[in-house]
């Protein structure tokens, strides 16, 4: 039993700074503390550190400007995309025949659907990673608590809403437990919460150097711009026209190659976590330079 408590203690100690973790766990081992006492001591210290972190203004700013708004947007975008991909998966899985691979046209469609799903997942992961990094950079002491709020918003913001109202023909598929509940939760856990968690851990261990932070920010922004239409559709439940006026192009016909594809302003709003991370890393770099060697 003591071993299990020690395992919990080591897990909670992960919230502490590496040097403090080293010193505290070492002190407890030296004192011969049992697992329960060690766990209680570490939880007590972690709670104090957490409370201390919130005495500063930066976690509140990170919460209001990044965790909650980005959590909401990611929640809606991930649910919309999860539902779109779920329909593709359902159609292929339920109607699978070898013909999908044998026919060049059907194979092309299958590859296109797979590629689209991969790019959407990459956008979610990049966007979430920059959000996690922004949270960790903005407030070191309270990064795990802001991350928990972010995760809570991601999973709860869409509770009680549905995408079926926009696309009633999908209602039958999305009413099933797997495609309606398990699939979106799985996608969010894998491509939203997990990348953000990795980013928090990464920034906690060693803040990203400025060139890498800039490269990540630019990469995530390019992905968002590339998927501009899908992002707009995800956040307006498919009514992208409400945000971007359609442009039929020179031929005056919608749906042809010369149609205009203006970048939605929403995409620039979504770049905010990446820019916030970059601003924070830049500030740390300037402060380190001022402090000297």
């Amino acid at each position, binding site marked *: 039993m003591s071993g299990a408590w020690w395992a919990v203690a080591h897990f909670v100690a992960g919230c502490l700074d590496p*040097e403090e973790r080293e*010193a*505290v766990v*070492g*002190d407890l081992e030296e004192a011969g503390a049992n697992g329960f006492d060690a766990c209680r*001591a570490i939880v007590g*210290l972690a709670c104090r*550190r957490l409370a201390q972190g919130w005495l500063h203004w930066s976690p509140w700013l990170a919460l209001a400007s990044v965790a909650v708004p980005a959590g909401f947007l990611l929640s809606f975008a991930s649910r919309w995309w999860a539902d779109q991909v779920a329909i593709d998966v359902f159609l292929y899985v339920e109607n699978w025949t070898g013909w999908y691979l044998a026919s060049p046209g059907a194979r092309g469609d299958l590859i296109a659907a797979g590629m689209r799903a991969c790019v959407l997942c990459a956008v979610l992961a990049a966007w979430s990673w920059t959000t996690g990094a922004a949270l960790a950079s903005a407030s070191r002491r309270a990064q795990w608590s802001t991350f928990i709020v972010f995760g809570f918003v991601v999973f709860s913001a869409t509770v009680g809403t549905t995408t079926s109202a926009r696309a009633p023909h999908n209602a039958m598929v999305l009413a099933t437990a797997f495609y309606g509940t398990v699939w979106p939760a799985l996608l969010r856990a894998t491509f939203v919460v997990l990348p953000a968690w990795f980013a928090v851990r990464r920034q906690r261990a060693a803040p990203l150097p400025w060139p890498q932070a800039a490269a990540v920010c630019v990469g995530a922004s390019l992905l968002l711009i590339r998927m501009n239409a899908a992002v707009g559709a995800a956040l307006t439940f498919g009514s992208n026209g409400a945000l971007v006026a359609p442009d039929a192009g020179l031929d005056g016909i919608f749906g042809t190659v010369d149609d205009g594809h203006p970048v939605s302003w929403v995409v620039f709003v979504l770049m905010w976590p990446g820019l916030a991370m970059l601003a924070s890393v830049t500030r740390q770099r300037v402060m380190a330079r001022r402090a000297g060697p």
Partner: protein
Amino acid sequence: MALGEFEYLMLTAAARLGDDAYGAAIRQEIEQVTGRACSLGALYTTLDRLEKKALIKTWMGEATPQRGGRAKRMVRVTAKGARAASSFYDTVIRFSRGVAWASK
């Protein structure tokens, strides 16, 4: 520099331990002398506060086998810390003159 009671206890324990002052040793010293439990949370947050006030200096020391190969957080009282503790002690002594419990 105003000190709290626990801050004074920590400074005194660290000063008494000298080169052997680190988290677990300070905690043990306080518990033995005062007879009160000292939580690690209180100990480490107070260490940070004292360091921020420049009353102590801390650094990571060597690791020992009985600590599972983990390093100690070593503590040294600074000159400013010694002055603050001395001032606290003088205040308590001066203020306590003439009261029943001080003349026991």
